[in-house]
């Protein structure tokens, strides 16, 4: 068995399942937002704010934010372990890959906190 300490769930199956589960959440959110815009062609700031002031919409958006973070982590981890390897970059690959992974994990964490601040404050 091949192990990888930086993968999201430490298991291929859990990462694969989570990637699909979060994709469904993201699709549902996208369809809802587009549907809402189509159903409210003359949408004002108050209509938009009213939607996000409801608890269920804040919860739905929070769930989507978690889904974005998990989905992006798994996806970018796959990209980085495909292209930033010793085979393609030589000995410095591990440092480059870890730096890349640390940077995007900080960015994702920042987006998560920023999103929560907007939604719940």
């Amino acid at each position, binding site marked *: *068995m091949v192990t*990888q300490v930086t993968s999201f769930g430490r*298991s291929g199956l859990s990462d694969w*399942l989570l990637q699909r589960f979060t994709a469904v959440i993201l699709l549902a959110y996208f369809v809802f937002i587009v549907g809402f815009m189509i159903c409210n062609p003359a949408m004002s700031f108050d209509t938009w704010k009213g939607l996000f002031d409801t608890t269920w919409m804040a919860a739905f958006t929070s769930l989507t934010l978690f889904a974005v973070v998990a989905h992006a982590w798994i996806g970018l981890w796959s990209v980085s*372990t*495909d*292209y930033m*390897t010793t*085979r393609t970059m030589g000995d410095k690959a591990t440092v480059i890959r870890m730096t890349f992974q640390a940077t995007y994990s900080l960015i994702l964490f920042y987006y998560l906190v920023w999103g929560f601040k907007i939604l719940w404050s």
Partner: protein
Amino acid sequence: MLKVSVYRYNPETDKEPYMKDYQVDTQGKDLMVLDVLELLKETDPSLAIRRSCREGVCGSDGMNINGKNGLACVTPLSEAAPNGAPLVIRPLPGLPVVRDLVIDMTLFYKQYEKIKPYLINDTPAPAIERLQSPEERAHLDGLYECILCACCSTACPSFWWNPDRFIGPSGLLQAYRFLIDSRDTATEERLADLDDPFSVFRCHGIQACVAVCPKGLNPTKAIGHIRNMLLSRAA
């Protein structure tokens, strides 16, 4: 005359690989690509290729023919280079070149070895053979026919990037062949060995393997079955 462009590289004499053009007289016949290479070798014996059975059974002459992996012995010119188009021959991509069209398949075989390609059965051996019903035997159809030519694995981008960690379509097709065999009792052990982020789950289902398999097999479908078995085991 058919224009044939062949990848040439001899690490002992060449600094880097290059493409060499030849003119081959096919006499207007719809030859197999291997026949064209044999004609070509009559004029240039220095060209290195692997070949053996010349009928799509041994899997030796896998190569990249006009951009698509295939067996030279069962690929006719009318399919590879229709209407007299030039023929461009390169080695299978993604693995190191030993010389010209001969590649080093060590990593490919290491992945094959990982899946333990033999029956494991810890129950007492019967007096004769371990019997299978016709239905149980039918599960192996579409799996046992793999000849390990490596056309599929070397067409897979995931295998190009991680040939040391991703089993690859060929190895996974074989893995499912033993997982589904009613005579094998090591299902749990086999699945446990596959449940990591690389061995199976580097397959993104693009089906390049299915498009090139000279035996018409479907590794993507087999990989899907392995995923379902892993899911059933864990859920």
